[in-house]
């Protein structure tokens, strides 16, 4: 038998079952859908995050999985079995709520034992399992305390232990770190991830915080207006956003209006402002736009480099520096080029001749760093762009 609390990095266990959310719709009032046709699969052992601004339907989706809300349409399956008609107490998910919702009148041990008591696990076994789980989260010495006598981080670990002790099919976390300050959040993020890896359980996580989603998730489903707009691994979503919304919701980006000239070698040939020719990655999984269409290209600030006069790059453009801020880890410059303001983030020390406003600079990037966006209608794009440039000012 393993010693409880021991960490086996080489053989991480996976527990949990496959959760399928299939074509789920939710309307609280007839005709006004807060969740629209949401489909995703949570694989055993996977950490999947629903990321989106408030009102994007992420919490409603989680609540439907937990059983507190009833889908208007669609199926929620655990290992292929539809659980839509089961009330929350008959589903088998461990839920951690914002603020943890620990039972204030029970001790830490009683909190953790609660689910086992409800399942009529007998006294000695119940005690043993609860203590084992408390030991796993490093709180065995706190069993007799009341929740309010614990720090925020310890309360979270109790909430996790309570949600894990009955070996649920998956863990559902509803913005558990929502109300905490930044430092504690970061510490608890690693802690959740750590415990998840140790237990090997699948996690469905809901947050509006993109950093949180990036650090913790195996996959991220970005939601907007009740729909999943893109789903994929953090690098995939960050480097190859499908839409202007995803591009600007995850981190900062430059959105450049282009006209499509054609497709060559699997890359899009585009015309930037002023008929400057260039190339960009085609959007994945979406129908490629037709030549002559207007579109948007997303270009991350950290992918743009300042070029010395002799240096070359796949894509080169001249510009005039209009602003420069030194931020410690990196410097943030704003350059007037291609008819708009481009934000450039560089970790290299920029020569002082290039940091004075009005300085002429050359910028360069690789074709693959420019991502052509799908469905980037001009209106949508300009709205996003406004927000980005406002953030940059």
């Amino acid at each position, binding site marked *: 038998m393993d010693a409880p609390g021991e960490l086996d990095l080489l053989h991480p266990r996976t527990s949990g079952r496959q959760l399928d959310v299939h074509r789920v719709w939710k309307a609280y009032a007839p005709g006004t859908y807060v969740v629209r046709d949401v489909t995703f699969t949570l694989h055993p052992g996977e950490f999947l995050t629903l990321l989106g601004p408030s009102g994007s339907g992420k919490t409603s989706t989680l609540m439907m999985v937990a059983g507190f809300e009833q889908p208007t349409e669609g199926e929620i399956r655990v290992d292929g079995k539809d659980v839509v008609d089961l009330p*929350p107490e008959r589903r088998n998910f461990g839920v951690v709520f914002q603020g943890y*919702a620990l039972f204030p009148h029970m001790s830490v041990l009683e909190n953790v034992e609660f689910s086992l008591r409800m399942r009529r696990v007998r006294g000695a076994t119940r005690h043993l399992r609860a203590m084992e789980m408390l030991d796993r989260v490093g709180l065995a010495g706190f069993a007799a305390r009341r929740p309010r006598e614990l720090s925020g981080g310890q309360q979270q670990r109790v909430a996790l232990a309570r949600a894990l002790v009955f070996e649920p099919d998956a863990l*559902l976390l509803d913005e558990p770190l929502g109300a905490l300050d930044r430092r504690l959040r970061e510490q608890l993020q690693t802690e959740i991830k750590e415990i998840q890896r140790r237990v090997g359980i699948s996690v469905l996580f809901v947050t509006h915080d993109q950093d949180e989603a990036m650090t913790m998730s195996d996959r991220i489903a970005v939601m907007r207006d009740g729909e999943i707009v893109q789903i994929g691994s953090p690098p995939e979503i960050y480097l190859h956003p499908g839409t202007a919304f995803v591009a600007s919701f995850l981190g900062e980006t430059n959105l450049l209006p282009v006209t499509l000239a054609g497709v060559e070698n699997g890359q899009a040939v585009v015309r930037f402002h002023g008929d400057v020719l260039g190339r960009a990655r085609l959007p994945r999984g979406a129908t490629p736009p037709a030549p002559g269409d207007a579109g948007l290209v997303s270009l991350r600030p950290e992918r743009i480099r300042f070029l010395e006069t002799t240096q070359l790059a796949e894509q080169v453009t001249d510009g005039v520096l209009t602003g420069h801020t030194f931020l410690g880890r990196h410097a943030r410059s704003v350059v007037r080029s291609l008819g708009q303001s481009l934000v450039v983030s560089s970790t290299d020390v920029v020569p002082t001749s290039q940091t004075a406003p009005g300085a002429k600079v050359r910028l360069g990037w690789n074709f693959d760093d420019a991502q052509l966006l799908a469905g980037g209608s001009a209106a949508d794009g300009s709205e996003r762009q406004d927000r980005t440039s406002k953030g940059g000012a």
Partner: protein
Amino acid sequence: MGRAERSGANTLFFASMPILAFLLLPSLIIIPMALTKGQLIQFPPQGLSLHSFADYLSDPQWVHSTVLSFQVSAFAVVLGCVAGSAAAIGLHGRHFRGKGVVTGALLVPIIIPLVVLALGEYLLFARLRMVGSWVAIGLVHSVLVTPYVFISVQTSLTAGLNPALVRSARSLGAHWPNVLRHIYWPAIRPGVLSGAVLGFAVSFDEVVVAFFLQGPGTVTLPVRMFTAIQFELTPKIAASASLFILLATLSLVAQGLLAFRRGVR
């Protein structure tokens, strides 16, 4: 400033003393009146004796009325606690159109004139041939008790129960009887207790409904006192009234202790 404040406090003290006396003395005067040696209820009492208490406790009619009153009130409080708590729990954390109407309907028994309620219930129970049954009086009293329990349980729910606790318990596998027992009950217990004490007081000295619905064998203590004061003027009235004062004092002390314990914890 300190002096001005103190003199202000003094003025307030002397101004409020007569009001306090006016409120309390008529009640307290009952006790010496109960201790009279004479056979009539009068003030000042003649001599000092416990005979009116002995008379009261040895008169089967008065004893019967006292027992009946306890019985009716206990019945009303139990029903009222169940109904009031159920209503408060049912409405807690829920938002729907017409919630205000439901809440209003629950509070109507406090607002509606007692005579109107009594008359209506009299007509209803006359048709059901239940006038003169203690159950009928208890049922109507439970209607009066319900809003008090409802209000105090509602208060303790809004103050002490995060709706996420209920969801939490359900996600951990608790079916509703367990949610009720492990989540709601600890949160509403103080509210139920104080609502019960208040409700008991309301029911125990309620005259109007009890008067309308009385029968030969169902004369509650307040109704017996009211009848006696018109025809007998016996000091038993004062003796039984002392019982009321004792009960009221006890329940106040009990509530005080409860609040104190809650404060300490």
